[in-house]
Each structure stands twice: as C-alpha cells, then as structure tokens.
C-alpha cells in the first residue's frame, strides 16, 4: 500500500473514532463508527489481507452496526442529547484510555516483526510455493501461488480448519451457549 493511502485512511479512521464520542447524537456516533470500520478495512486490504478486510465490512459495518442503528432509532434521542457528562465518569473513562495507550505503546515498542515492511520482505510467491512442495496435496493454494496471487482465503481456511479446529469448535459452542442464553433470558413468562 502506498504510504499516502495508509496515512489517509489511518488519520480518517482516528478522526472518525474521535467523532464517535464527541457527537451527542447517537445516530451520528453510530455512522462515524461505521466509517471508522470501513477505514480499518481499507488498512487490512492495504496489507493484502483482502479476506479480513472484506469480512470487517461484511460483519461489523454491514450487520452489527445496522442492528445498533436499528435499536438506536427506537430510543428517545432527545433525552440522550441533553444528558450531562458527570466528572467522575469522565475521569474514569480517561483513566481506562491512558492505561490502554500505555499498554499498547509498551507492547508495540517491543514488537520486532512489526518493523519489517513489505518492501524489505516482499511476498514472494515462488518461495511460498517451494515451501509447500513437501505437502502431498497441492490443491488450489499451489495453483493460486503459481498464478502469482496470494490465496489468503485458502491459507486462512487451512490454518483455521486444520491447525485450530478444536479451538474453532469451542468458540462455536460458546457462541451457541450465548445465543441460547439470550433467548432464555428474554423469553416472556406466561402465567
């Protein structure tokens, strides 16, 4: 990704994220969050991670935020706009932010692989193809690599469904339990 585009999307993302909590109108906040998600997706796509970028839009911007907006529209917005910020809540929020920024900066500072740019180590499909030569089944990943494209969907699927299959099942069961729990809790008691 050209650095100009990276800075454009990164700065836009931060501005929109700030606008989320500056706006007093919840619908405006929600729309800014959607814009922020789309900018994040652009950053993913800039890293050649098309699948993650598209899923970011599909799941967060296209589904979750629509539900948010759906609920917000049914609320009483006037009461929300008049609400005063209490100093204690403000201080508490700021403390969380400062701790988070401190944690992030220490972790990111010591993250060596993050310093390598795509220019220093370009994705070489020939090398990637060689490393897969030991596998018996070449399949569509090798075909895509031979075409000179990065099969990010296939690679991600292979990693998820072969290496992390147990973890995936557990996450699935967790989500199912949460869904059943919500249905049970929100069920009307007739009697």
């Amino acid at each position, binding site marked *: 990704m050209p650095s100009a585009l990276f800075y454009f999307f990164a700065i836009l993302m931060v501005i929109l994220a700030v606008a989320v909590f500056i706006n007093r109108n919840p619908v405006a906040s929600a729309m800014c969050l959607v814009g922020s998600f789309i900018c994040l997706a652009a950053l993913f796509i800039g890293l050649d991670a098309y699948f993650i970028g598209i899923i970011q*839009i599909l799941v967060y911007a296209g589904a979750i935020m629509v539900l948010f907006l759906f609920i917000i529209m049914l609320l009483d917005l006037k009461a929300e706009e008049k609400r005063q910020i209490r100093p204690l809540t403000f201080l508490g929020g700021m403390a969380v932010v400062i701790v988070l920024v401190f944690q992030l900066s220490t972790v990111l500072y010591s993250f060596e692989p993050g310093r390598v740019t795509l220019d220093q180590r370009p994705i070489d499909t020939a090398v990637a193809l060689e490393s897969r030569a030991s596998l018996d089944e070449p399949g569509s990943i090798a075909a895509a690599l031979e075409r000179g494209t990065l099969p990010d969907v296939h690679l991600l699927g292979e990693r998820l469904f072969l290496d992390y299959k147990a973890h995936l099942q557990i996450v699935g069961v967790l989500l199912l339990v949460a869904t059943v729990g919500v249905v049970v809790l929100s069920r009307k008691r007739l009697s």
Partner: protein
Amino acid sequence: MAISRAERPARTRPTGRLTDSLSATSFHTTRHNVHWLPDFDIALLLTSMVKIVGLIFLVIMPMVAYSVYAERRVSAILQDRVGPNRVGIPLTNIRLAGLGQPIADGLKFLLKEDLTPGHVRKLYYWMAPALVLIPALLTCAVLPFGSELNLFGHSVPLVIADLNVGPLFVFAIASLSVYGIVLAGWSSNSKYPFLGGVRASSQMISYEIALGLSIVPVLLLFGELNLVQITREQSQNGWLLLPISFFGDGPVIEWKRLLFVIPAGIAFFVFMVAIFAETNRTPFDLPECETELVAGYHTEYSSMKFALFFLGEYAAMIIGSGLAVTLFFGGWSLPFGIDQWIIGLNDGMIPWWLGLLHMGVFFGKVVFFILFFIWVRWTVPRFRYDQLMKLGWVYMFEIALANIFLAAGILLLFRA
C-alpha cells in the same frame, strides 16, 4: 515516506512479486525519476479508468434507465395496457416505440422542484440517497463482464478488479446500502418513512444470511472465491446449471457436475429469493409498500433525490442479476464449451470479436434476468410482513443450510 522510496536506486519488480489488479499503485522507479510522486503503472491505470467510466456511465446507467422503461412496457403488456409508447426523437413525429421516455423522465426529475421539508434532519436526509446508489455501483467492480479484449497486441481483462474475494466483496458492499434506506427513514422524521426504514433494516439483515449461505455449495464445487476463475471454469466445463461441454478438455458429461445440478438448482432458488428481498423488489417490497406506508422510506423525497433511490434499486437489481449469471449461468461464456472450440481454432488466442461477443453474451443474460425480475414483480402479490420473516428465517435459512450438506455429500461421493 513517498520521497524516500522514490530516491532509492532503480529496481525492477522481482518476477515472483505479488502482482494483482491493485498493483497499479505499487511503487517502482523508472527512467523519469519523479521524486515527489509515486510512479504509477500508467497503462493499467488508464485501462482501469476507461473500464470504470465505460461500465458505469455507458452500460450500467443506461441499463438502469432502460430497465425502468422495460418495467413500464412489460407491466403494460402483462396488464393489457399500452404503456409509454409516445416519446421518440424530440421535435419530430418519430416515436421509436417510446424509447425516448427514459431521457424525458431523467430531465423531468432534474428539473422538478427539489423540496426539503422543514422537519427533516438535513445532513442525513441529503446523505441517504447517495448512500443507496454508491454501494450498488461499487459492487460492479468485481463482476467479470467479458473474457478479455485483444486489441493492438494488448490483452485487456474485462473486469475492473480481479479480487480473490469476489462474491464476498459484492455482499459486503451491498450490505452497506441498507444504511441509505435506514437513514432516509429516520431522518425524514415522520411516521411512514420511519416504519419503512425499520422494516428495511430487519428484512435485509434476515435475508443476508440466506444469501450468504446459498452460494456456499457453488464455492465448495469450484474451491474458489475468484469470479474470473469461476467463470473460466464454467467456460471450459459447461455452466453450473447446464454442465454439458462438447469442446472442453474433459468428457462431454461429467457425472459429478450433472448430479451437482440438484444442489446448485436449490442454491440458485434460495439465491434469487434472497436477491429479491435484498433489492426490496416485489414480492418483498415491504419497506416501500404503497398500500400501507404511502411510499415507505422515500415518502418525503422529491425530484432527483427520489430518483437516486430508484437508480440505486435498479442498479442493485442489475448487479444481483450479474452475480447470479456469473455464479450459475457461466457469466460471459457461451454454452456447451463453444468458447474452447473457437479459441482452439485461433491458436489458443481469444480473437477481438469473441471478446466483444462475450461482453454481449454477459449483458444479454443480465437483461434476461432483469426481465425476470420485472415479470415476477407484476405477477406475484406482496407478502405480509410476518410471512416474509417466517419465509426468511424458517424456510430459506434452513433450505440453504441443508443444501450445503447435500452439496458436500455429493462432492464426497465423487472424491477421487
């Protein structure tokens, strides 16, 4: 950052380096060392620009205009009326069966009074029509509308962005158009548009699940998310729903593909129902249902802003048809693998006339689907809202889910 990159000694692009449709913006220095600008691949950039402008303004937009005309003419035929058959060339008596009607309609929309009611939320009221139209037009970027055009020794692939996540890209961007409808309903600040917006958001979210699940069998068969590759495969081995190929590499009838027509047919059915719901077409046009909600989410809109909602709906319909054609009916390819025969006669090259023919074939198929959309609209009555929800969650969702198992079973049966 851009300056420091350009100042480094000239380096040619390594052969194995990842190149794709977006590499138009990758940096590499040439003889003309411009220090302050990244060096673009001018040829790719120019052809992409031509493709984008040509596809949107010379193909999609006129198609939208003329599908409105087709809608009015076909509905007239179905209801035994005459329909708009008067407007021809202005200032003459030449009528051309009313083909001038879309131009007159467009002018009328532009010249009408653009009324903004006093009670609306201005910013969102103005933003909403654009938010409906833009996603619908963006999605056409990944649709392969032709094979490739060989002109003057250059081969131009007839797709704007050859992405590896084609169908997902279409779903993701198309799912953003719900914001336009929801915001239109909310910002209008009156009862009927609001109800329309609420209906639209729940309807589109419900059917998105069926839409996504319905194409999983197709992706299982092809093992591929790249629409260009999917079309090429169908060009060689016959369309997904017509798997007969006389001229391909394999046998004329492949039993796996023939048996796969069953899950593919079910997938196509669920896909079409979901597309109808996603584009808010009758029988699922509950968000604008005129007998209950006046005009639904665009009640308070007038003039060109109203027309933009219309354009968005028809553009979404064209893109949905294009995706259905690409996934199930071989995209730009001719049936029975005839492409392979012609290419074989021309030493493995696609002659320029075949490239143009492929474009014609693709848009011909799309036009067929648009007529199908229109036909359904004027024959099937509207669902009730609870019926719509039940159909989406109880029937379509379950059918799509069971269909995935059926498709996987067939693929397992024929596994080498």
